[in-house]
């Protein structure tokens, strides 16, 4: 079973708009990560936020973490058609690198 849930399951926006995806997890974590997957192939790491951090930025990506609510959000600003993909959050409970993934959000950015 999945560790967490992602919301929404699917999101369709116009190019230039912002996309926000939310993730909830169930147990305490060491860190939370976001990955991107194109066309059901390999996952690409986007950003990692540690349990003692509340917000992190990387280019057009902004991630927040609320450990009291066991939730995280990923914001993609000024979206592009090339951002079309599935996005997954993944939590790590320790430093052993085992990740527990959510069900993913399928993002479509229309040109």
């Amino acid at each position, binding site marked *: 079973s999945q560790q967490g849930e992602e919301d929404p399951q699917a999101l369709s926006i116009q190019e230039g708009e912002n996309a926000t995806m939310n993730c909830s997890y169930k147990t305490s974590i060491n860190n939370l990560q976001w990955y991107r997957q194109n066309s059901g192939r390999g996952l690409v*790491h986007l950003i990692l936020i540690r349990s003692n951090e509340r917000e992190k930025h990387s280019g057009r990506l902004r991630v927040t973490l609320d450990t009291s609510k066991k939730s995280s959000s990923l914001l993609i600003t000024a979206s592009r058609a090339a951002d079309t993909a599935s996005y997954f959050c993944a939590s790590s409970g320790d*430093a052993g690198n*085992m990740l527990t993934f959510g069900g993913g959000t399928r993002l479509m950015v229309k040109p």
Partner: protein
Amino acid sequence: DAGVTQSPTHLIKTRGQQVTLRCSPKSGHDTVSWYQQALGQGPQFIFQYYEEEERQRGNFPDRFSGHQFPNYSSELNVNALLLGDSALYLCASSSLSGRAQRLGKLFFGSGTQLSVL
């Protein structure tokens, strides 16, 4: 610098057969994890190998087994295949040695798409 490579890319088997999937980790990595991703779902952790031993295991039956070789490459074996084993199998590498170990970032291969008929 080669990333994570997996072979084969696609595989078709019939129920009851056995399958072996292969993975070479990214250069400099010593840890290999395997994930199963069913269509429309997130990846699920199968197991992780480090120093040629199974270090962690997810909720998968004993039909799923693995091996890690001295050069850090790894194999995933699945016996007595079931229709429900049809999925994308992903290999991910990382390093449990040195400074990188606490970062937890994984590098994924492109996966092996297994179809069981």
